[in-house]
């Protein structure tokens, strides 16, 4: 019997025209005096999404969150939640809960009472409240600490209590404001996966604000990169990383080599970028149409740049240089290779061999090569 081919179900409601977004920002502008925090922003967020707002501090990401929670009102435009304008709804009436950056746990209440706080404000009967709190304690593995006060538990535990408290009312939307900022790196990594797990289990829509790109990439189904109150790019983590739409995004997410030059069309979506006198032009990809001679930036990620002693055959791009510096990071090494033009290109290689057996050392002449799909041409 022929089995239908198993296609993995990809979660991508933003590509499905029939899906209705749970949150819609429609031309929202927010000003504080003369300062424009959010500048004519439109955005759709879908149910069950884990949506990350990523950007440097002061880019407006926290303002978006506070507008969703109801602590700030939009100066212009409308915000819809489930198709309804939420601007007249007070924060305490919104089906939205927030996990605060400082956790904002009530210091005078026990862990149990903190989690029950929101439920007691609702019309939920007493025995159901108890059951719900216990469920939340189980979900966050905090059962043993129910009777403790916030100051008697560790930072990681406080973070879990804050999460449990914000999830207790089963909100339509959970807002997380830099939720892992106060945790050390190792704990942060573990908690990221826990967060994803909990998001999947509860099926709640999560909107997370973070300035940590790695965190955004790890947890989110989609990432919105912001700057100066505007959305620069909204896409899946992979798309943001592989095909950034501008220099800002390419530079903000991960490491990147940027080379400026003039574009010339050579194929369907292939262009050549002449970047320096006497150097072969670099071949790269751009999905958009670029007029010949346009000033562009050629971007290539260090891990996509191969390093070799001899000139590689059939490489789309190959440039020669000398090893200027080597950053040893344990699992990988980053080679800083200086080109004859003085430009530094970073190339990463896995340290599959012991350090003593390394191929290249300082001042070695090496070849750097990369494919024409690895090289992304950015116009802005």
């Amino acid at each position, binding site marked *: 019997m022929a089995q239908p081919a198993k296609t993995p179900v990809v979660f991508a409601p933003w590509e499905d025209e029939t899906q209705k977004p749970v949150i819609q920002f429609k031309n929202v502008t927010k000003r504080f005096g003369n300062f424009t925090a959010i500048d004519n922003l439109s955005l759709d967020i879908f149910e069950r999404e884990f949506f990350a707002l990523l950007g440097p501090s002061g880019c407006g990401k926290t303002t978006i969150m506070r507008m969703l929670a109801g602590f700030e009102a939009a100066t212009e435009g409308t915000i819809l939640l489930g198709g309804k304008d939420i601007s007249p709804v007070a*924060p*305490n009436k919104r089906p939205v809960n927030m996990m605060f950056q400082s956790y904002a746990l009530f210091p*005078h209440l026990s862990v149990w009472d903190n989690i029950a706080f929101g439920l007691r404000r609702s019309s939920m009967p007493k025995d159901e409240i108890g059951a719900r709190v216990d469920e939340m304690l189980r979900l966050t593995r905090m059962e043993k600490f129910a009777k403790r006060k916030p100051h008697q538990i560790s930072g990681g535990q406080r973070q879990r209590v804050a999460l449990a408290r914000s999830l207790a009312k089963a909100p339509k939307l959970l807002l997380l404001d830099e939720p892992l900022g106060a945790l050390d790196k190792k704990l942060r990594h573990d908690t990221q996966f826990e967060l994803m797990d909990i998001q999947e289990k509860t099926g709640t829509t999560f909107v997370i604000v973070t300035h940590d790109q790695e965190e955004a990439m790890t947890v989110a189904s989609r990432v919105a990169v912001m700057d100066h109150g505007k959305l620069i790019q909204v896409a899946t983590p992979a798309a943001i990383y592989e095909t950034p739409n501008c220099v800002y995004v390419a530079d903000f997410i991960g490491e990147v080599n940027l080379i400026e030059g003039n574009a010339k069309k050579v194929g369907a979506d292939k262009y050549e970028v002449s970047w320096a006198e006497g150097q072969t032009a670099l071949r790269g990809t751009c999905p958009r149409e670029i007029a010949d001679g346009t000033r562009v930036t050629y971007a290539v990620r260090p891990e996509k740049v191969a390093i070799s002693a001899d000139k590689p055959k059939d490489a789309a791009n190959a440039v020669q240089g000398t090893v200027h510096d080597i950053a040893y990071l344990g699992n990988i090494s980053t080679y800083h290779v200086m080109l004859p033009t003085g430009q530094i290109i970073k190339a990463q290689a896995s340290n599959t061999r012991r350090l003593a057996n390394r191929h290249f050392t300082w001042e070695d002449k090496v070849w750097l090569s990369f494919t024409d799909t690895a090289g992304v041409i950015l116009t802005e």
Partner: protein
Amino acid sequence: MNYRRLFLIGVPYVWLLALFLVPFIIVLKISLSDIALAIPPYTPTLHLSDGWEGLKDFFSKLDFDNFLFLKSDPLYWKAYVSSLQIAILSTTITLLVGYPIAYGMARAPEEWRATLMMLVILPFWTSFLIRVYSWMGILGKEGFLNSALMWLGIVDEPLTILNTNTAVYIGIVYTYLPFMILPIYAALEKLDVSLLEAAEDLGCTRTTAFWLVTLPLSRPGIVAGCFLVFIPVIGEFVIPSLLGGSNTLMIGKILFEEFSSNRDWPVASAVAVLLLLIVVVPIVLFQRSQERQAEAQK
């Protein structure tokens, strides 16, 4: 090293011993003596030159007669009760007036807070006595308050405020308000605004957020403020004697009269010892609550 530590601890102990414990023992001794027409106006007095016999004779003459006398005359226990009443009521009023002021200060824009704090402390720059005297000028029959009220046509006849308990309450609340405001302000200023946002986010209205979050978290400030007002008000003497009337009964006033008008040092001392015992109870309670607070913040 050890001597330095001993010295550091020793200084406050010697200070307390010399200026608190020794005088208290003297007062306690006088309270157990009898009145006498002599200098000093009580008997017995200790003459160490008489040796062991003199000491025995001295102790045999001490008795609790003065305390029994306090019990027999209703004036005294009425004064104690009235002092407690005035202290409790005026502490409550001070709290009700002081809390909103402290709250407003803590919620004021940051750049204003130092100025507002200054305004609260400013009255201390003028002598306490002068400030109480000026209340006599305000509250009197021909005082500023009555003139203003009459001029506005609110009253036809001047109100009798001065030399009543009302004037005492006004004076006490006015004088002790900073002691209530400052600790409450300190507690409210520390309060993280995101806690209130969290409470609202979880379904509280502004009002319930105040009752469930702000008030319990400012409790240490309230407790400290109440004790700072209550303890000195019980023994308050200047305000009731200047602003109060003949029927304002406060133990501080009685104490003063026994001491200076009646020259009955033994009874006055007994009154003072009993007052101390009454005040010690709230002080101990206060200390314990402070300790628990410190424990909780560890």
